[in-house]
């Protein structure tokens, strides 16, 4: 069985937001930008003191780059109040000329969150809170809506909050998710899905079942499943001899990623990389080859 939602492919990196050396993460973002990648992302764990504040890092890195889009991967919602988050994202999207996206998660590492003064939520509560937050964020951004912005949730309530700023481009809300309930939220409310390969219990084949939860929830909500972009955080090394998935020469990577794209409908590949050579090779030798393989296959098999 194959799945393909027909999106253009995007390629990006997942950079450790280490605060020592101070500018290392920014430099890696600049490397990705110059290499022609589409996206650079940073994890957001405010309770880890050796990491930069991701919001500050995103703004600083956006100011030092020219074309590349930037996103948290993924924003720690419990420590980032949604209305302020929405305004911060919109501010940065306006400053950067529409290069900011919103990767967001329901939260994890609850001891760390609680240690920083955030709420400790059960899985169910965290999903509820995320759905409320997405409603608030979209409401803040929707300056065309003349109505009063009112969300009365169990976790977040806004009533009459002023809308705006509106972002410069339609910012994608991409959710990190694995379990059925939150996957259904992705289908109902998100613009993208952002899982990491190492958290798939049975590896890539899990994507089929997870996609199904998203697709069914989308259809039930009257949304087009194809409107939800499927990303995948990946890791790998270039080696001369093939040793396994993404452990081989760039041509092997290209074939493997094209296969993932055509089998599971994944259209965004985000490579964990703090290494300029790894990033540059991915951009120069893997990304164009995957695009070509996928285009050829789509023409041959009559995908849309």
């Amino acid at each position, binding site marked *: 069985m194959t799945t393909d939602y027909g999106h253009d492919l995007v390629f990006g990196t997942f950079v450790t937001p280490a*605060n*020592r050396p*101070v*500018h290392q993460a*920014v430099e890696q973002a600049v490397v990705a930008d110059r290499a022609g990648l589409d996206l650079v992302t940073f994890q957001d764990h*405010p*309770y*880890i*003191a*050796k990491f*930069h*504040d991701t*919001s*500050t*890092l995103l*703004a*600083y*890195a*956006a*100011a*030092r780059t020219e074309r590349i889009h930037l996103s948290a991967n993924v924003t720690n919602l419990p*420590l*980032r*109040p949604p*209305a*302020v988050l929405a*305004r*911060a994202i*919109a*501010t*940065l999207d*306006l*400053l950067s000329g529409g290069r900011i996206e919103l990767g967001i998660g329901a939260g994890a590492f609850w001891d760390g969150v*609680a*240690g*920083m*003064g*955030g709420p400790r939520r059960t899985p169910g509560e965290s999903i509820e809170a995320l759905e409320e937050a997405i409603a608030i964020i979209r409401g803040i951004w929707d300056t065309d809506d003349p109505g009063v912005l009112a969300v009365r949730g169990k976790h977040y309530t806004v009533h009459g*909050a*002023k*809308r*705006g*700023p509106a972002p410069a481009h339609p910012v994608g809300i991409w959710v990190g998710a694995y379990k059925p309930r939150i996957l259904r939220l992705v289908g109902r409310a998100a613009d993208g899905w952002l899982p990491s390969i190492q958290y798939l219990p049975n590896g890539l084949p899990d994507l089929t079942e997870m996609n199904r939860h998203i697709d069914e929830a989308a259809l039930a909500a009257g949304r087009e499943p194809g409107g939800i972009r499927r990303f995948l955080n990946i890791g790998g090394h270039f080696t001369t001899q093939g040793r396994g998935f993404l452990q081989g020469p760039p041509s092997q990577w290209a074939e493997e990623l094209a296969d993932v794209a055509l089998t599971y409908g994944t259209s965004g590949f985000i490579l964990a990389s703090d290494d300029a050579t790894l990033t540059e090779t991915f951009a120069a030798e893997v990304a164009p080859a995957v695009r070509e393989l996928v285009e050829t296959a789509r023409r041959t098999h009559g995908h849309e």
Partner: protein
Amino acid sequence: MSSYGHPVRFGVEILGGAGAPGDAVSLAVLADQLGYDLVSFADGVEEGDADPLTLAAWSAARTSTVQVGASRLRATARPASIIARGAGSLQLLSQGRAMVMLGAGTPAVDLDAVEESVAVIRSLHDTARRSRASHSGTYHRLSGAEPGPSLEQEVPLWVHASDAAGAGLAGRVADGWTVDLAEVDLGGLETLSAVVDGAATDAGRDPREVRRAVTVTGPAALDADALVAMVVDHGMSLFVLRADGAAAGVSQMRTFIEDVAPAVRDGAERALPPGALTSRRLRRADVRARRRPDIAYDEVPEDLVEMAVEPGDAAFGKVRSTYLRGGNPGLVLRPRSEAEVADALGFARQHRHLPLGIRSGGHGISGRSTNDGGLVIDVGALDDITVLDQAARLVRIGPGARWRDVAKVLQPHGWALSSGDYGGVGVGGLATAGGIGFLNRKHGLTIDHLRAVEVVLADGTLVRASGTENSELFWAVRGAGANFGVAVAFEFVVDEVDEVGWAQLAFQAPDPAAYLEAFGRVVADLPRETTPFLILGQGMAQVMAMVDSSDPAVIISQLQPFVDIAPLVQQQVVIAPYAAVMNMFPEAPHDGRGEPASRSALVREITPGFAAASADLIRSGVSHWYQIRTVGGAVADVASDATAYAHRDTRFALTVMGGNAQRLDQWFEPVRRHSEGLYLSFESDRSPDRIADAFPPATLARLRRLKAQLDPHNLFQDNFNIAPTQDDTRSAS
């Protein structure tokens, strides 16, 4: 009323940015270009404005000198912990230009939220305490949060307040108080100033700790005389122009900084006594409260004040401990020049009752580069590396440079200078002790490359020592330098070194004594190109060896005898630049705890007796580190009286470390009986017997005579200390 002594500065506060944050950051860039001291973005996030912290972070990336931050920041809109991390990152990324002004003015914000925010931010930025941060407030909570990031300078926290309650809070806790002239008149300013002063005094603070800012707009901003009066009468030291993106705003920004600012500065200088606005750095009362007894903190020489680190300072966490030793010094002075080193020593001479550490890279074991309650002079800033003479391969290096950086600078020239086994080590300590590195058998010790050294002596004099000037000091620096002064520059002739062979070999070694004896036999016949270091543990042996050759055949043939000793379990052999070996391991912050127990022995041969005693030591489990560095070769070509490092004929330098000195000695003593001496760098025992092990009698007598001349009162004693001779050396000689 009077001024509080702070130089007058000028800032701009940018409002809104709701529709066009791009305009807001353009004003920030303009402010940077115009020479403003500060640009802040007012927080209107609850009214739908742009996010001020995002504007500040973006602006930091697009500006170079101006301080950047958020003002009127809502203490209830975000977790204070997140403000702390954000401000910390802004401080790091902007290289010390961050500031935060919390709003306690209009619209009314519960002052408790502001006060809690200040407490939470400060506790998360306090990395020196080494404990997790907790705070149980009404608005902001921490429970066991990890402090950080580690900052060089605290982020200044100001409170904006236009009523007595807010001004009182500013006086009680803030680094600065800011008030908007749109919210109070001059009479109100005077009243609130008095409130700030009173609250500061009541809280045990010096009112001067609280800097004063006033926000001005419209025609009032252009009245220089009125601003001068505010400096003179109310101690205001920062004038912030409220600006918006309109063209009129831009032209007012220019007028304010180009015309008004110089007039205010001139007027204030004329009206106040000379020097009134150039006060020295003043720490907060809670920072001063962490000072140690018996240190005249307020008498630190002016040129050292800016870089000095006290126990309450943000940077203290980074400087208190060394690589292996936990410390809690009372004051760390960080001189940036020879003159500042001399001033630091002057300060140290006034504090002879306290320990004095000299720190270059912080890896010293016998050289105590931290202490408890004493002084540390950290020469890390003296880290220049300059090629003086290309043809002669003469290179001048500051004591604060790290060997990893030295190697990187020398590599493009095809040069290297043998140092130690780790690139993070600093130049100063190693180059005054010996330097038993990976190229020593071919090229000699690090000190054997020294041609001249510049030293600040105990009395503050700067002297140059070489083969022709101050030659006795030049002799002494090469092996016992820590006793005689603070080296501020070294001149080395370095070696031509192409890429080298670098091997890491791991062996099964169930019988350590047999392995040691076999290792000794191989080294006896080993060509000078190869310098192996051996780490022996229970059941395993690891050999790290450098071959000064880029010829694979030479490398393999010289390593082959080691491979034949015992079953090889792992091997990696590469051809790489010396600099790559020195940069194998990344730099990590020093966070040593406790006191290292380290013992050194130099031996000529690995005799069966030495091997057996070593095997017993290894099997005892009292030691976690048993390393033998091979010496000999070129090191032995130098006469034993040519330098203070005298044990030229020994070929193996053993270092043993353990968790407990007494238990270690119980097992090390039998090993020591087989030794000819020791290398002082790796000896933590300070007993007179060990001094005699390090220096043969003639060397020691000569060192003691020189010590009596140059440091008769023994200022430099927190090292491997040589007591000055008591008799009058001049009449005796």
